[in-house]
């Protein structure tokens, strides 16, 4: 999560899920950005349909179990108020049959609002991975989010700095001043756009390699 939009949350979440699945981990990816889901664009999976049988069985994409409202919307916008976001979260959490997983990666919407409060309230085992860009405008919100999560005692895995253009260290310093782990930077990758929806290409980008390095660090830290 990030609080801020457009920092690469969805792309990083999806790439991490794909990398874990390739390494034979049992992994789920759940797109919780209900009004504006995008992970299906990365996975080219908007046309899939989950099987409904005593609940929702998420379809498998490239070895990962994948759930998104995009399956149900046929390309339509889904305007929702906060209480409805909460209802959908609880319904989909209750009905989706993930089975045994090593990790469930949840792609959060921007903003510090209903779904974030609901994750804190209902999903007590969640751990938070925070994404920022080097820009002041992104970090303004990310700083506040980090302070909030610390204040609430929520477990933060660390902070990723995405879309770097140069070798500045100011975000690293800021993150460490806040007492959190700087997990690493990911460069702006001009080839990324053409790889969206093409999973083999995507996993061969410099972006995926950098996400992979951060992912190994996280897995290492957790074991």
């Amino acid at each position, binding site marked *: 999560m990030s609080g801020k939009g457009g920092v690469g949350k969805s792309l990083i979440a999806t790439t991490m899920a794909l990398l874990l699945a390739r390494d034979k981990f049992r992994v789920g990816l759940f797109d919780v950005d209900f009004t504006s889901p995008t992970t299906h664009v990365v996975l080219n999976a908007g046309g899939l349909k989950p099987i409904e049988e005593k609940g929702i069985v998420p379809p498998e994409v490239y070895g990962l179990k994948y759930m998104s409202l995009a399956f149900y919307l046929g390309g339509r916008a889904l305007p929702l108020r906060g209480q*409805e976001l909460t209802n959908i979260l609880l319904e*989909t959490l209750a009905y989706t049959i993930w089975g045994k997983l090593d990790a469930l990666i949840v792609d959060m919407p921007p903003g510090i609002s209903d779904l974030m409060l609901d994750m804190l309230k209902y999903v007590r085992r969640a751990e938070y991975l925070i994404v920022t860009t080097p820009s002041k405008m992104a970090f303004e919100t990310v700083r506040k989010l980090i302070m909030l999560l610390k204040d609430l005692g929520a477990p933060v895995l660390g902070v990723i700095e995405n879309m770097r253009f140069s070798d500045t260290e100011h975000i690293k310093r800021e993150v460490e001043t806040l007492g959190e782990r700087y997990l690493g930077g990911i460069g702006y990758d001009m080839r990324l756009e053409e790889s969206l929806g093409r999973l083999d290409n995507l996993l061969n980008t410099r972006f995926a390699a950098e996400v992979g390095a951060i992912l190994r660090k996280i897995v290492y830290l957790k074991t």
Partner: protein
Amino acid sequence: MHEWALAEAIISAVSDVAEREKLREVNSVVVVIGELQQVDRNILRFAIEQLKQGKLAGAKFIIRTERAVFTCRACGYKWPFRGTNLPEEVREIIHFIPETSHAYVRCPACGSPDFDLSGGRGVWIASVRGEG
């Protein structure tokens, strides 16, 4: 929904009521199912008939449906889910995740996508009648 498990739960709840109310025999039971609840009423009816026994053996089970209603937040207009002209596939999606109606339904009076969908969810026992 798991109609057999639901039938068992209904039978057991009715038995508890019969016990509490000291009924010798249960005559009739009204079960209400929200219309958005995914329950196959035929399977449920069949399962209940198979499972009922003891004090409940002779009871008549009546299954009612609670309607779901849309209320527009922009203009206040109310209209029934039932009356909405939607393809079967979309109805199924809305049955499953009622909030997805915001992608498919508009207020017939003012065109707004900003409405409440209330009622039509859950399953409960509305009444148990019998001889004490």
